[in-house]
């Protein structure tokens, strides 16, 4: 067989959809979301015995996803090729129906994804996990942050995102980026 241990499948499969949802919110497009999920599986498989012993494999998997994303973001930051809003649009348009299909919802989502892309990776990761339905204590376990820091970062991330959304495309936002 060329695929992973059946036990690993049983442990991981129930959480894959939630992982994918978070990964999509983290990355904003499907190919990158799939990469994150695959990377999580690769890292988790290397620690099958740990995974097996866990009562809550889900949090652990999300902890890996969080790290994968933040590490990936650091790698991208070092790379000379920066992901820009333009790249982002291209990736997305190949995956999704064109804006004409359901114009309004699509444009709102695009605006949101563009705004998310402008957040710090850390902020973005927190929001992506939080809207997946994690409680503060679960988020603490995933991120190793204290409750106070976590609360403050979540709030700041939302405020920043909300302001990016409100001023999307206007000069002040660009100024903020530089």
């Amino acid at each position, binding site marked *: 067989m060329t695929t992973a241990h059946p036990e690993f499948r049983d442990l991981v499969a129930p959480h894959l959809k939630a992982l994918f949802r978070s990964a999509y919110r983290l990355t904003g497009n499907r190919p990158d979301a799939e990469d994150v999920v695959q990377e999580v599986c*690769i890292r988790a498989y290397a620690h099958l015995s740990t995974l097996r012993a866990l009562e809550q494999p889900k949090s652990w998997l999300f902890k890996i996803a969080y790290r994968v994303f933040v590490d990936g973001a650091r790698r991208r930051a070092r790379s000379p090729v920066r992901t820009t809003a333009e790249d982002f649009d291209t990736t997305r348009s190949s995956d999704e129906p064109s804006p004409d299909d359901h114009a309004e919802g699509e444009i709102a989502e695009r605006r949101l994804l563009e705004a998310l892309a402008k957040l710090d990776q850390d902020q973005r990761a927190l929001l992506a996990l939080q809207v997946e*339905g994690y409680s503060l204590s679960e988020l603490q376990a995933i991120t190793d942050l204290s409750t106070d820091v976590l609360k403050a970062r979540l709030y700041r991330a*939302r405020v920043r995102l909300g302001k990016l959304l409100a001023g999307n495309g206007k000069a002040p936002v660009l100024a903020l980026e530089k």
Partner: protein
Amino acid sequence: MNCNDVAAILDSNRSARMAAGERATVDEHLSACEDCDAAWHAQTELLALRVPPMPATLLERALLAAHVPQRTQPRRAWPSMAIGAALLAGAALAGVTIVSLTSSPSANVPPAPAGEPSAQVDEALVATAPAATAPAPSATPDLPTSVELVETGGDVIPLVRHNPQYPPRALEQKAGGYVQLEFDITTAGTVENVRVVKSDDAQFEQSAFDALSKWRYLPRLSAGKRVRRDGVQTILRFVLTDEKNPPAPRSQAEIDAAIRESLQYSAGLEVALDRLATDDLRGVELQLDEMQAVYGAERLDLWNFYGYLYTVEGNYARAIDAYETAVAVAMRSPYPTSGPYVSLAKLYFARHQYDMALKTLLRPQQAVSGAPPGGSRRVSDEATALIDRLRALGVTEETLIGR
């Protein structure tokens, strides 16, 4: 109500389900506090974001990726250890590339497993039934025939196949034969201009012609665009099962169920092909996801189609993943196929991963070399051309060994 209260509501995901009274106090605060208003708005938008459904292939790809030891090219490379193991597993397969004209009498080819009739079988024999007990052809047109398909181009594999009707008179005479046909594949993957090149018994020609006219192919890709492919040749061989060695008998109910599933499966692929013809790539993927949910992850056709789709989209990393899975499935299959090797090799080539391209092209040959002597093999023209181009770049079997 203050900023901390608002934050607590957002942190606990209660913003969408609050009593009217509490909501009013929140609104009051939001109208006075710019930050909280922004935060609230952001959370609302985030919760409303539609996430596309997870591709059904992702689990399989992730499991595959997890299992393959990682090297410099995470996830996408197929390290040599894994190739060795896969080849050992596939060594029992004969003639992985292409079934030759003269080889494999039907009795040597395993019958299709129950419930998996023609749809999954490439270049091999379609499910057979012994001639002596064959029901009237009109009642079960799919079963009495077995059709050996010999292709001439590299990755020209029919996606939707309709079995020819075995001519009733030939059944009575217990006669077999072959028909060689030439045809064109349109940009929609349909078959046109079918003409008979030759046959050894004219009574099979009409039946072969009728069946082939309904087949569907994945259209040829050239520079990312679907183009016509003219002058494709194929041979349909009409074989009656060896009566001394009949396949396991199947009840009429089993046969009916198998035919029904086969027809549904073909219809599903035709839907995907029709969407492809109208450039509805998202629709194609949804259809494939749906089919994979129904038919499982061992369908070579589906993996090939995913690979093709991602190639059309220009998403080569995804395409390579899909074709790698297709190769893995092909290796496990009891039916020889040239299926995904050439497509996969071309992708590696396009990404300048020349070593991987050559390794991919050599995989079916290496598998064949472990087969009994006399087993025929042919490397497709496209594979040969690609190997030549790699040689011109200085990538040969010898340089592979040294690395």
